[in-house]
């Protein structure tokens, strides 16, 4: 996945607490709990370092994914509105 392009920095950045981060962080945490389950360790209290690391990695990846998603959607919107602006005859609304 390519890095977020430079012009995306003109968009408001997603908050640190955002849905994508929360989801991927939760997925990382579940992966750690699953590893505990498979290794027959206590589910929540074992391998806390592993749980913290995987949650962090997920949260980190979610932030950059949210930024990229926002950029892709904004770019599509910009292209769409440019098209509408250049072709007003196709978008006449009923008066």
């Amino acid at each position, binding site marked *: 996945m390519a890095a977020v392009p430079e012009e995306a*920095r*003109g*968009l*408001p*950045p997603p908050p*640190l607490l955002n849905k994508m981060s929360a989801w991927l962080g939760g997925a990382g945490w579940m992966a750690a709990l699953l590893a505990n389950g498979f*290794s027959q*360790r206590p589910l929540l209290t074992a391998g806390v*370092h*592993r749980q*913290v*690391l995987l949650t*962090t*990695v997920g*949260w*980190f990846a979610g*932030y950059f994914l949210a*930024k990229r998603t926002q950029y892709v959607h904004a770019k599509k919107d*910009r292209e769409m*509105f*440019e098209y509408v*602006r250049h072709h007003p005859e196709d978008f006449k609304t009923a008066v």
Partner: protein
Amino acid sequence: MAAPPGRQGAAGSALTARPCDKMAAALRAAAGLRLAGPGHGLVFTRSAFVARKNNYEHPNWFGVGLAFSTSAALWALLFKQHNEDVMEYERRKEASKHKCTGCS
């Protein structure tokens, strides 16, 4: 009828050897050729690692420290990146106020 113990080749004793003696001799030959595995089996591949049971009495403190420090570093990096993003966005917003807004 019993073949003498410690006997090597099974080929020359077909008339007097019992089946278990033949197997014992084959295993000895296989062991010499590193073909004998645990139990009775013949092993033709070697494992690249030996599986050990985890010993939870001695935690891997280096691994724990590495995991926590990596997590701390990632969070620090994330906060830094977010603050930079916010500052850059504010800066660009201020800069665009001084430009014409005729086009999109």
